[in-house]
């Protein structure tokens, strides 16, 4: 049996620490730790001898044994950290990856450009207090023309280049040539005040080319309330244009003519070079139109405005051919 002396303890510590620090993996480390500190270790054996010592010595050697044990434990812990770190480095190196090698694609879809433009327009007008109204694309002469103060003989009828449908009497049913029928449907079904925008598809007998489509999209606005003025129209258009195009864009109204508004105007927006771009038409709702919808023109006044949605998309992305909007070539759709 080894004698419990200071030298023995020192020797044990040196041997144990040598074994621990020379261990090359966690298993060897654990084995060395058990060898040094386990139940069958020399140190444990020496500890059992404490009972046979005088109290003075017992205290002294007790402290010495504990100190030795702590020192060995600290060495083991340090070595464990070292080995873990080395193992981690090995593993990390094994896992090394060229991130540019993997080309796994997360597929994204795309909103159609017209949807993007329409949603943006709707959002701006909703924020300005408008609701969004919709109506059918196939309409009767009443909604497309007559209720809008365009009687059958009116010269303006010809300018709509209407596509008619083989239903009813000749020229009684048609693809709507503007979104204005939604004005009538809304006023027939709803009492003022009315604040709506009506986006949707419209149709003309235009041969499809780089700047025309027979089916295209417009948005129409209608406000009917007490005391609405031409000044309100000009102010609303200006507010919309600033919200949609930016605060440095200017607007102007020029006198024009539409049978369903009086006074009527075209509205222009300023380009960066200071020139003007005609955007759409507008005006004060004609008293005949109000009366046609059962609204008293002496009590209520209002304005309406309208412009093309597709054109905005064309302008925004500087498309050189508007037909891209209906070709649905995914090489186009996926650009936006």
């Amino acid at each position, binding site marked *: 049996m080894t004698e419990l002396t200071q030298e023995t303890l020192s020797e044990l510590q040196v041997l144990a620490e040598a074994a621990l620090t020379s261990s090359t993996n966690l298993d060897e480390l654990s084995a060395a730790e058990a060898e040094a500190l386990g139940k069958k270790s020399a140190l444990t054996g020496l500890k059992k001898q404490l009972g046979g010592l005088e109290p003075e010595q017992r205290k002294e050697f007790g402290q010495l044994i504990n100190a030795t044990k702590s020192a060995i434990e600290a060495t083991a812990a340090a070595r464990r950290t070292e080995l873990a770190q080395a193992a981690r480095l090995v593993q990390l190196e094994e896992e090394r990856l060229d991130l540019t090698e993997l080309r796994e694609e997360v*597929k*994204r*879809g*795309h*909103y*159609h450009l*017209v*949807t993007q433009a329409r949603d943006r327009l*709707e959002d701006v007008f909703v*924020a300005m*207090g408008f*609701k*969004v109204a919709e109506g*059918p*694309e*196939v*309409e*009767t002469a009443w909604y497309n023309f007559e209720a809008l103060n365009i009687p*059958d*003989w*009116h*010269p303006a009828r010809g300018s709509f280049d209407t*596509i008619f*449908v*083989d*239903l009813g009497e000749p020229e009684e*049913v048609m693809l709507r040539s503007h979104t204005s029928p939604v004005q009538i449907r809304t006023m027939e079904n709803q009492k003022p*005040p009315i*604040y709506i925008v009506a986006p949707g*598809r419209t149709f003309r*007998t*235009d*041969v499809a080319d780089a700047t025309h489509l*027979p*089916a295209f999209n417009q948005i129409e606005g209608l*406000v009917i*309330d007490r005391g609405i*003025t*031409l*000044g*309100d129209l000009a*102010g609303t258009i200006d507010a919309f244009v600033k919200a949609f195009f930016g605060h440095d864009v200017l607007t102007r*109204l020029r*006198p*024009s*003519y539409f049978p369903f508004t*009086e*006074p*009527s*105007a075209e509205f222009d927006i300023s380009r960066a070079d200071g020139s003007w771009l005609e955007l759409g038409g507008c005006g004060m709702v004609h*008293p005949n139109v109000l009366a046609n919808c059962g609204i008293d023109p002496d009590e209520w*006044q209002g304005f309406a405005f309208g412009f093309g949605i597709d054109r905005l998309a064309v302008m925004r992305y500087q498309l050189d051919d508007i037909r891209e909007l*209906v*070709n*649905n*070539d*995914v*090489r186009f*759709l*996926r650009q936006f």
Partner: protein
Amino acid sequence: MKVLLSWLREFAPDIDGDPVELGEKLSGLGLAVEEMTVTGKGVDGVVLAKVLDLRPHPDADKIQLVDVDAGDGEALQVACGAFNMSIGDLIPFATVGTVMPNGMEIGRRKLRGEWSNGMCCSASELGLGDDHDGIYLLTGQADDAKLGSPINEALGLTEDILWDLEVNANRPDAMSVAGVARDLAAGLGIPFAFPEFSFSEAAGDIADSAKVEILDPTLCGRFLARVLRNVEVGTSPQWLSSRITALGMRPINSVVDISNYVMLELGQPNHTYDLGLVPGGHLRVRRANEGETLTTLDDVERTLSSIDGVIANGVDEAIGIAGVMGGASTEISGTTTDVLLEMAWWDPPSISRTVKRLNLPSEASVRYRRGADYGENMDRAMRRFGQLMTEAGATIDAGQIDERGDTPDRTPIKVRPAKVNGLLGTSLSTAEMTDHLESIGFGTAEVGGTIDVTIPTWRWDTQTETDVAEEVARMFGYENIVRTVPKGEEAGGLTAYQVDRRLVRETLVGAGLDETQPMPFLAPGDLAKAGLAEHGVTLSNPIVAEESVLRTSLLPGQLKTIAYNQSHRSGDVSLFEIGHIYLPPNDGELLPDEREALAIALAGGDATSAVAMLDLLESVFTLPNVQLREAEPAGLHPTRSADVFIAGQKRGEVGEVDPAVAEAFGVAGRVGWIQLDLGAVLEGPHGRRNYRRVSKFPSSDIDLAFVVPNDVPAASVQVTINKAGSDLLVDCRLFDTYRGESLGADVRSLTYSLRLQATDRTLTDDEVGQVRQSIIDAVAKNHNGQLR
């Protein structure tokens, strides 16, 4: 309407300033400038030349050889593609080296073996008019002494400004040079006046040689006539023909040119008859008899209807369509000496209906339709015509026929200044309003707080207080109106449907689909090709035959889109579309049964991937009771498709496109397909979610595989499992299907993954065993399914 600055100045001499600013002023008055050009500058290198000889090109049919004298007395050979020249004609000639206004440089070239040493020019090539059909013939406008001179000099042209104005349908007055001048002068605050037009009458009384009867006063409001004699049909003076050329009309002969000149200058269309061909000079104005025929000036026989107006002769034969086109039988010719001149005012709706019915627009009818001037201007136009004709050597019988029908009511309109200000958002005084109105010829009189406004005869369009308010706004200037915004307190927003529709898009875009928007037109036969009923509503006036049917389904459009993309090497496209379809009208309805549909088309996908998309929508929208019922939807794969029922209602179909249909559209491979009646789905019940407490207790997960006959839908098995599993079954999904010889021919194995869980306790093995057994029993009983 085109106007020349020099011509406007004859009515408002003080018009001055920067042409661009004047154009802005015109636009601000509602006469939008579409184009502004500087005319009369000539083109460097273009000179007056004379045609010496014309002969065929030996080796080409479409060009001829022309010898011209460009001032040096020598014959210079040119090849020319126009054939309207005669020997002796004076023409504009571009010499070698000339750079034309379009940028083309004229060089010495050989055309099929013959030298061409310059170019004979049309009016449009020189910016002198719209006519580009032939060489601009200047005989009579220039003289031989000026051969070789620059063309502007030879024609006595001086620099001028030409504005092309967009004139709206409510501006009859602005369809004339004088009318534009009136508006511009008012806008600029400068004087406007008509020059004095006059001529001396000759002996002879019109009453002896002409007579007019208005038989239908609703058709013709006023009819003036004059008799002109000693008329020589020749060429017009250069100043007159260059003006009408600048305004876009082609000089024809001295009489027609004066007719056009007066119309352009004063807005009064007019018509000339060869008096010798009108028996007794007798004209009768009436509606046409149904089916009556007449050969018009363009040598087309027209069949008339009782809505049309005609001018008939003394024996009641129609010799002209009122306000639209004259007849061939009384046309002026080279031998005409006596002319009966008509200036009338026609009822605008009547003229409009005839123009539309006959599809026969003309410079005259475009003015009559808007409402020409029925007042003093008609007499003025008569004087102007007479003046120009007498200057050209004609004599005019004494007296003017002036027959009257119904003209517009000229009772003054009561205009309330407060109403006008309330409409415009202005605070104009009554005096300011009357000043604005009088500046453009409206009569005003203040009567007890309102203004009695007399509408001028040249503004037929203006009929109500609101119309007058627009004139006030126009003259006040739209740009001067203070901008405000409505004070309404309405809250904006989208409807529930619109919000949901956006969510559909968001969901599908998120799932990797691209949104398409094909046009809704189909070609005849497209529906049949797609296996669908051919009951699409057709268009009466399609632009092209391939776009003459309205779609009743989104299927043909999507297949065309896929085929297009496949042909451009984009094979497996995943697309969706939200758009209207137009089913035939329901009984008693006039309009089609129009619905908003959703289509999903997965090229390279199959029925399973389509069902997965349907499941996605079901989950996002919490669609109630979605069932796939066995069916063979038209156009779809008969054994790989189903009808989609939601809450007990058929709402669409899901599956795969019929391979034969896909092939017919040139689509390769399978196409997973969904079409839903989106409106009905989203307007129907959906989106109700009830809170279910998340269990804190462990779950028991078990798998069950059943061997089930092929004709039992897996969805039915799942319904059975869900029912038998009671509240404890919190999740059930099909995760494997297997077919194999070992199982037998008409069966397959369906493996479901089940999760059992209670919210208030950990389930015991016993409980789990009981639920498991009741599921097994139920599947066996309902579907003859055996646990594998």
